[in-house]
C-alpha cells in the first residue's frame, strides 16, 4: 500500500535543516569511504575548472523552492539548450566538452559605470563569496526543473562597479569562438554572439543571481561555465550562459531571441501562464525527471516568485510587454 507522507521538499522554511547540521553532514560524507573517491575527483575538477570555487558553499535557506524535489543532476547536466553548440538538448553535453576552454576566463564590465573593470572569474568567486540557492527553472518550451545553483547575487557585483545615473539597462554578452562551438556557423541566421538584457532594477533584484556552480560543484560547460546568469522569474533563455561582457546601457539592449522572433520572444519574457506563446500554451509545464506520461502541472505567475518581483512591473500591461 502506498502511504502518503509529507515529503522533505515540502517542508516549510521554518522546518528546514539548520545550517550547522548541513555542514556536519558534508563533513560526514567527506569522511565516509564511499564519498572519498567523489571528493578526490571533485577536488581535481575544482583545481582545473574553477579554482576560486569553494569546497563547500553555504545553503541560503531564504531561497529554497520547497514545493518540488530538486531535478536529478544527470538531467540538469544532460538536457541543455545551448545553441552555440547544437539545438539537440541531449548532445550539448558532448559537444561542449570537446576542448572548449572555460578556464581561465575573464569578465569585462563596462558602459555607464564609475569603475569599469576586467575580472578573472576565480578571483571574483573568492571576493564575492559563494552561496547555494535552490531555484525553479522554467524553459519557454514549457518544461521545468528545480536547480541548486552556487553563486552570488548580481547586485553585489553591481555595487562594486558603481553604475552612473545613465545606466538604465544591463546588457550581457556570451563568448563567441567559432572554433570552440559549431553553432555560430551552423545556425548563421542568429545574431551571434548571444546577448541578453535586464532593466537595471531587475538586475539589482535580490533574486537575480550569477551562478558558478550546480549542486555544490563547479558549473559544467554545458550549463554555461564558468559564469552564467540566473533570473528565476523569467523564461530560461534570459539566463544567459558563459558571460564575457556586462555593459550598463542607457537604451534597452538588443537580445538574441527578441531579434530572432520579435512576436514570440519579448524583452521581458517573464514567466506568465496567462500569455501564451503564439504557437503553444504557457499555462502548464512538464516537470523534468517525471514519468513520460505524467500530466503537465500548472505554471505559476512569475514562476512562483510573484511576491518578490510583481512590484517591478506595477502598472505595466504584461500582455504588451511580454
Amino acid at each position: 500500500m502506498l502511504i502518503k507522507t509529507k515529503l522533505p521538499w515540502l517542508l516549510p522554511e521554518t522546518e528546514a535543516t539548520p545550517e550547522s547540521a548541513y555542514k556536519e553532514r558534508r563533513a560526514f560524507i567527506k569522511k565516509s569511504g564511499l564519498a572519498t573517491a567523489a571528493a578526490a575527483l571533485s577536488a581535481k575538477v575544482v583545481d582545473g575548472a574553477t579554482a576560486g570555487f569553494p569546497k563547500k558553499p553555504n545553503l541560503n535557506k531564504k531561497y529554497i523552492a520547497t514545493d518540488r524535489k530538486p531535478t536529478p543532476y544527470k538531467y540538469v547536466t544532460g538536457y541543455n539548450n545551448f545553441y552555440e553548440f547544437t539545438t539537440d538538448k541531449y548532445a550539448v553535453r558532448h559537444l561542449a566538452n570537446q576542448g572548449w576552454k572555460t578556464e581561465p576566463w575573464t569578465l569585462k564590465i563596462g558602459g555607464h559605470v564609475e569603475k569599469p573593470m576586467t575580472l578573472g572569474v576565480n578571483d571574483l568567486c573568492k571576493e564575492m563569496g559563494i552561496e547555494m540557492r535552490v531555484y525553479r527553472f522554467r524553459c519557454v518550451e514549457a518544461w521545468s526543473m528545480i536547480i541548486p545553483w552556487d553563486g552570488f547575487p548580481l547586485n553585489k557585483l553591481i555595487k562594486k562597479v558603481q553604475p552612473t545615473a545613465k545606466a538604465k539597462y544591463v546588457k550581457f554578452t556570451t563568448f563567441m569562438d567559432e572554433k570552440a562551438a559549431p553553432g555560430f556557423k551552423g545556425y548563421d541566421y542568429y545574431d551571434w554572439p548571444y546577448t541578453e538584457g535586464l532593466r537595471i532594477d531587475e538586475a539589482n533584484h535580490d533574486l537575480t543571481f550569477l551562478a558558478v556552480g550546480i549542486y555544490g560543484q563547479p558549473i559544467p560547460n554545458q550549463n554555461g561555465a564558468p559564469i552564467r546568469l540566473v533570473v528565476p522569474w523569467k523564461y530560461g533563455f534570459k539566463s544567459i550562459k558563459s558571460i564575457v561582457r556586462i555593459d550598463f546601457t542607457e537604451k534597452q539592449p538588443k537580445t538574441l531571441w527578441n531579434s530572432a522572433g520579435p512576436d514570440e520572444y519579448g524583452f521581458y519574457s517573464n514567466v506568465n501562464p496567462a500569455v501564451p506563446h503564439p504557437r503553444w500554451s504557457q499555462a502548464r509545464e512538464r516537470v523534468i525527471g517525471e514519468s513520460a506520461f505524467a500530466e503537465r502541472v500548472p505554471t505559476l505567475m512569475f514562476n512562483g516568485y510573484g511576491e518578490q518581483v510583481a512590484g517591478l512591473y506595477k502598472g505595466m500591461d504584461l500582455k504588451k510587454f511580454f
Partner: protein
Amino acid sequence: MKGIYRFVGSRLFILPLVIAPFAYLAIVLATGLRPETMSVESDKVQETPADKEEFDLSQFTVSEKELQEATAGTGSEKVANLHERLTDDTGNIAITLFVLVLCLTPLKVLFRRNKFISALNRHRRTVGLACFFYACLHLSIYLTNGINTLLDELTRLYIAAGLSAFAILLVMAVTSNNWAQRKIGGRKWKKLHRIVYFAIPILIYHRAWAGKVSEETIRETLIWFSPLIILQTLRIVRQFQERQKKATSPT
C-alpha cells in the same frame, strides 16, 4: 526477375517497414521508462521518515559517476524529457510514411511501365495505415499532457493544424477497407481520398513550426517534403500533357 517483382509486391516486403519503427519505440520505452524515472525515489522517503533531514541534504550531493559524466560529456542518458522525444519521434515517423506513400502515386504516373514501381504501389494502403497508426500514437502521447493543455492549445494554429491533419487521416483510414470502398463506390471513393492533398500543406506547416527555431525547422521540413513536392509537380505536368495529347489526337 519476375520473382523479384513478386517479392516487392508481397506483404513480406512491406513487413519490416511496419515493424521497424515498433522495434525502435520498444527500445526507447525499455531504456527510457526505468523504475527510477517512474517512481522518483519517493518510496525511499516513505520507508525512512526518521531520516528526512538526511535525505533532504543528500539531494545536493553528486555521485562520482554523475560528476565524471557531466564534466567529460560522456553521459548517454536521453530520458530527461522522454515525453518530448516520443512526441517528436512518432511525429517524424508518421510524416516520413506520409511523404513515402504520397510519392508512390506520382511514381506510377511517371513510370507507367515500370514493374518495380507497380509492385511498390500495391503497398499504398499498408503504408498509409502505418502512417495513421503513428499519427495515433503521436496524438495519444500529446494528449497525456492533460485535457487542460489540449483546451488551452486548441486555439494555437500550429496545434489546430496537427489535429486537422489527423482528422483527414482518420477519414481515410476508416474508409480504407474493401467494404467501405465498395459501399462508397469507386469514383466517389477516389474523390473522397483526394482530401489527402489538403493534408500536405497542413502537415508542412505543422512540422515546420514544431520547435523553437523556426528557420531551421522550416528548412528541414522543406527538405523532408521535397521528394513529395517534386514528384507531385512532375505528375501534374505529365497528366496535363497526357490529357492534351488525348484531346488533340485524331482518334
